[in-house]
């Protein structure tokens, strides 16, 4: 991978988004900080966009790109819904997104986690800005994903309840908020529950403000070393006036070093 090449083009703005499939639905989560360079543009930004009433999309990358791509494809899906008279399948949304993104060869900076329910059940897809798609059971994206993925990988289990899935989402996004400078403030989450009749999805939104664990008090005075404690092995005195030098202390190398201060 050419490091110079990756510096050009759209910059990734900070985000942590995630999605989890549970028994009977899917949860999408996101942080709420939007940055422009080093300035926080929006403290309560909504990064989970609605595509159809049963399909939602979390977006990382360039905020304008994620917002507009989701809205554009969402409107195409709405037309398809009206023309066919039935709710859209999540796979359809997926294919439309990747067919839009691939021709731009990655320059449309939309990294998306697509989640929703259709008559076949709950689905979660990862859509990259280059146009590749992968179905997943859980997914994290954005600059905070490195922090969130550890939480996800260790705590995810198949067939969770809705409450467990929401808690997992909150924990994963919180990890991103704490450890990534590009993510922050609070966690937004959207729960899409699978129901048997059309439109096959029931949506609810929520938010959570995380309180990070209290910081440990630093113990002072543990590492103070009194003056004169360090043993001098060799001392050379140089007189610049007379251009002479004298070795006043010269202990051999194998002299055992006296333990000092806290090392005792």
């Amino acid at each position, binding site marked *: 991978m050419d490091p110079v090449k990756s510096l050009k083009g759209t910059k990734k703005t900070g985000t942590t988004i995630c999605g989890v499939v549970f028994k009977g639905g899917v949860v999408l989560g996101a942080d709420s900080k939007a940055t422009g360079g080093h300035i926080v543009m929006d403290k309560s930004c909504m990064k989970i966009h609605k595509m159809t009433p049963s399909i939602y999309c979390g977006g990382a990358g360039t905020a304008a790109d994620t917002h507009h791509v989701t809205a554009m494809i969402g409107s195409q899906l709405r037309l398809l819904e009206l023309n066919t008279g039935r709710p859209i399948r999540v796979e359809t949304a997926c294919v439309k997104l990747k067919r839009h993104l*691939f021709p731009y060869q990655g320059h449309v900076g939309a990294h998306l986690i697509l989640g929703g329910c259709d008559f076949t059940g709950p689905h979660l897809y990862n859509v990259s800005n280059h146009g590749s798609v992968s179905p997943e059971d859980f997914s994290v994206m954005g600059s905070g994903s490195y922090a969130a993925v550890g939480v996800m990988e260790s705590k995810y289990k198949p067939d969770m309840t809705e409450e467990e899935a929401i808690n997992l989402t909150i924990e994963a996004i919180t990890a991103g908020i704490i450890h990534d400078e590009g993510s922050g403030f609070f966690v937004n989450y959207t729960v899409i529950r699978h129901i048997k009749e059309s439109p096959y999805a029931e949506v609810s939104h929520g938010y959570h403000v995380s309180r990070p664990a209290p910081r440990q008090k630093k113990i002072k005075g543990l590492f103070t070393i009194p003056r004169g404690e360090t043993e001098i092995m060799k001392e050379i005195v140089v007189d610049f006036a007379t251009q002479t030098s004298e070795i006043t202390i010269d202990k051999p190398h194998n002299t055992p070093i006296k333990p000092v201060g806290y090392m005792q």
Partner: protein
Amino acid sequence: MQSDLNLPVDLGTTIMALKFDGGLLLAADSRTSQGSYVSNRMADKITPLIDDIYVCRSGSSADTQTVAGYARYSLDFHSQQLGKRPSVQTAAYILRDFAYQNKEVLSVSFICAGLDDEKARIFSIAQGGAIFEQKNYAAAGSGSTYVLTYLDEKYRPNMTETEVRELAVRAVSLAMFRDNSSGGCIRLCVLKPNTKPERIFLQGDQVQSMFPVHR
């Protein structure tokens, strides 16, 4: 190493196809990476094109998905006009033509394999669009370099399905051990005449770990 989520999703891969007495086995690892970050550890690189014809994908994830999708559409259309299922050779050449005509912008390599009536056929399409029909087995992707000689040594024509399955699992495990870009789980696809393709997913202990236990 470069860690940047703007990098394209890459299928650094180990994929292979092996003929056995009575059919064809396809095998692949399941890792996709973006630089040094593994973005999907359970990817499916064995994609169906039409009926008994499958393609193993390696290279850029977005590019291979798009080309395979185009080939699937093209084969479907072609089969309507032809009145029957096209041959494996047609499928492979459709993939090859697309890869060759767009070689400046695409980073793809495939193993296209399937059954023509009772006969198994394997085609290997390299980066840049060169196509080779392989007599007995083919391997591709970054991990294949580590196991090609292993396959050369261990493969014999007309092995049984069990033998060839053990060989493929062993080979992919070895490649996953040595190649950074291959890893995760092993996916298999068994194609036999007049039988529905069988998809097998091996994970955890079923993937042969190369780490020495008693040393």
